[in-house]
């Protein structure tokens, strides 16, 4: 019974923003709004407005940053909110944490809501660490008594004992973040909102922070809303997920399906050199026409998770039958260095290609790339007569953090590639003679 209680219920939530400068026209719109209001009519500007598509220029100055959002979060649930930049995640969190009011709709919640939109809010550089703990704690809604009863814990968690009576302006940026997170983590709200705080701080502290979040949700039965681009963290922490796109909730359900939905939907416009070639109508030469990526479930993705399957499909046109053809894919990092080469010449699987359109595929069972942007260059050649066609940087590949090692952890130095490996301790042979 207790478990099934709804902690947050969001119904028909919408938020409208006005684009462009607040200036001329503002006062006339305000007056018009006010005139409608005193006559008891609906705000005339609520009827206009478009979905929040960044790339395309809209007709109206009003956009809906959030549009008809509905979802419930159960008590003790850790819900991951994922979506592209500009999908409305941060706006949703801002509305939930009462920083800005919604335009329409209703949110009802049970218990104290605290947000970690950015830790260390309200730190005054001239005040000491101790004074700032009290300042920050009370800003977040704690009483002075609550803060002082947790002071030791906070200080120990942040690891700033030595600097407690030093002004915060002398702190390193990492120390400030640690102190800020420590205060927020000990706040013990019923509902905690976390937005990308884990992007800062060193690896040790990130682990501490993730551990604390897990502890908060599992032992305390408290609800956590977690916004992140780090899929590994989402997978590791969350019990359910919602995916947002253009101000709407497009998926809500399990974490795995949510992440997969997100990857599928985030087809970005990449600098795809091959797009022009599709329309090319050359019948006398061999041509690489397109490169498509797939994660084994969905076709046509532009994002892939490390540790997951990636299939690269190369489609081509050949004017005649050619024997012993090989394709070479080179994955280059953004600085142009080749990270690895995939070539069917080396795997002894040369193709015989027929006249006309065709397709070859290359499967990488567990993508060993760190999160980031990469380019795929493709070359096609006949074993003895040489290059048939080559396209450098033919496709952009965006890799996001998945769960390469199955532990949710990734090295903090992101150089080279990820490599599957095992650690073990050899049995120590102790002989009595020694």
């Amino acid at each position, binding site marked *: 019974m207790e478990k099934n209680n709804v902690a947050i219920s969001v119904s028909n939530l919408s938020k409208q923003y006005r684009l462009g400068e607040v200036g001329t026209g*503002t006062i006339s719109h305000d007056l018009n709004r006010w005139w409608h209001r005193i006559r008891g009519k609906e705000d005339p500007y609520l009827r206009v407005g478009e979905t929040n598509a960044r790339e395309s220029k809209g007709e109206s100055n009003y956009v809906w940053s959030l549009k008809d959002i509905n979802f419930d979060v159960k008590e003790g649930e850790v819900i991951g909110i994922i979506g592209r930049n500009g999908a409305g995640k941060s706006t949703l969190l801002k509305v939930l944490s009462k920083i800005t009011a919604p335009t329409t709709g209703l*949110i009802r919640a049970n218990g104290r809501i605290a947000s970690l939109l950015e830790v260390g809010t309200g730190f005054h550089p001239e005040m000491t660490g101790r*004074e700032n703990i009290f300042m920050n704690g009370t800003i977040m809604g704690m009483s002075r008594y609550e803060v002082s009863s947790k002071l030791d814990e906070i200080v120990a968690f942040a690891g700033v004992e030595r600097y407690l009576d030093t002004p915060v302006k002398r702190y390193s940026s990492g120390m400030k973040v640690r102190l800020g997170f420590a205060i927020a983590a000990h706040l013990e709200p019923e509902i905690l909102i976390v937005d990308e705080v884990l992007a800062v701080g060193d690896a040790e502290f990130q682990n501490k922070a993730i551990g604390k979040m897990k502890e908060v949700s599992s032992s305390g039965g408290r609800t956590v809303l977690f916004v992140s681009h780090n899929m590994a963290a989402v997978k590791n922490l969350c019990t359910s997920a919602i995916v947002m796109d253009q101000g709407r909730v497009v998926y809500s359900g399990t974490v795995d399906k949510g992440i997969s939905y997100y990857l599928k939907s985030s087809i970005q416009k990449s600098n795809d050199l091959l797009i022009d070639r599709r329309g090319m109508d050359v019948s006398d030469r061999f041509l690489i026409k397109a490169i498509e990526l797939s994660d084994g479930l969905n076709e046509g993705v532009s994002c892939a998770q490390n540790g997951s399957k990636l299939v690269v499909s190369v489609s081509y046109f050949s004017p005649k039958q050619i024997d012993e053809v090989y394709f070479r894919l080179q994955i280059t990092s953004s600085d142009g260095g080749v990270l690895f080469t995939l070539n069917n010449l080396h795997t002894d699987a040369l193709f015989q290609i027929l006249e006309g359109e065709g397709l070859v595929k290359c499967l990488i069972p567990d993508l060993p790339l760190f999160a980031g942007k990469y380019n795929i260059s493709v070359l096609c050649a006949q074993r003895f007569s040489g290059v048939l066609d080559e396209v450098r940087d033919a496709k952009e590949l965006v890799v996001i953090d998945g769960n390469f090692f199955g532990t949710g952890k990734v090295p903090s130095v992101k150089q080279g590639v990820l490599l599957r490996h095992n650690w073990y301790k050899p049995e120590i042979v102790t002989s009595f003679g020694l």
Partner: protein
Amino acid sequence: MKEHHLEMEKQWTTTIEPDKGSFNLNLKEVWKYRDLLMMMVKRDFVTFYKQTILGPIWFFIQPLFTTLVYTVIFGKIASISTDGLPQLLFYMSGVTIWNYFSDCFTKTSTVFKDNQNIFGKVYFPRLITPLSIVISSLVKFGVQMLLFLGFMFFFMINGAPVSPNSTLLLLPLYVLMMAGLSLGFGMIFSSLTTKYRDLTFLLQFGIQLLMYATPVIYPSSLIAEKNKLIGKVLMANPMAPIVEAFRYSFLGAGDFQWGGLLYTFLFTIFIFLLGTVIFNRTEKTFMDTV
């Protein structure tokens, strides 16, 4: 089933709705955050003289020098009447009381702009911030009052015609009215400036002009003597009765009128309520317009 639903309805502790222009002071919530109010006052006080050599002495220096300048310019050079009071005391009383009002007004009028970093990241009743300004300015006012009282006793011992009287007991009322007025005006201005920045320019010289429309550097009797109408208009300024009454209570000369004080009192309540309504409406959406 329906009953169960009703039961669910009751237990929501937080409701977030669009701004409906409701009149709700939310004093309960402000009370819950009283520790934050204390911390903010403490912060203002502690950080005021950090890394200064003279420290809290700066609280004295500013009113002292202003008084000296006024004494020289308006007293000695322009020879404006001071109702028969020692010039130094006359100007110091005006400066002390005016400083509190103008400090509160200027600082509260930029609350949203100055705090948009904090306001944009964490929620607490926004009313806490202007309240903390009024209270921390009170500390400064208290210190300056001590300075003023010191000078007053010095002059009294030396036989100056200064006669404090029983209306002194009204001092808390004067302070409360000034706090209410400056808070009300400040909240109105800070709310409007989030959208219309023009008002910041208006405010800069507006406060200065208001000072000249208040009997700070001249007694209101001087104006009433010269022109009855202007004298009446002057008393429409809600700050004028406070300054005059303050002078009368401490120094024994001034235009003390119960009617004027009542007018200011009603005006204060009106401005304070209006300011609170506008402020509460703005706090919900100001992040979108600031």
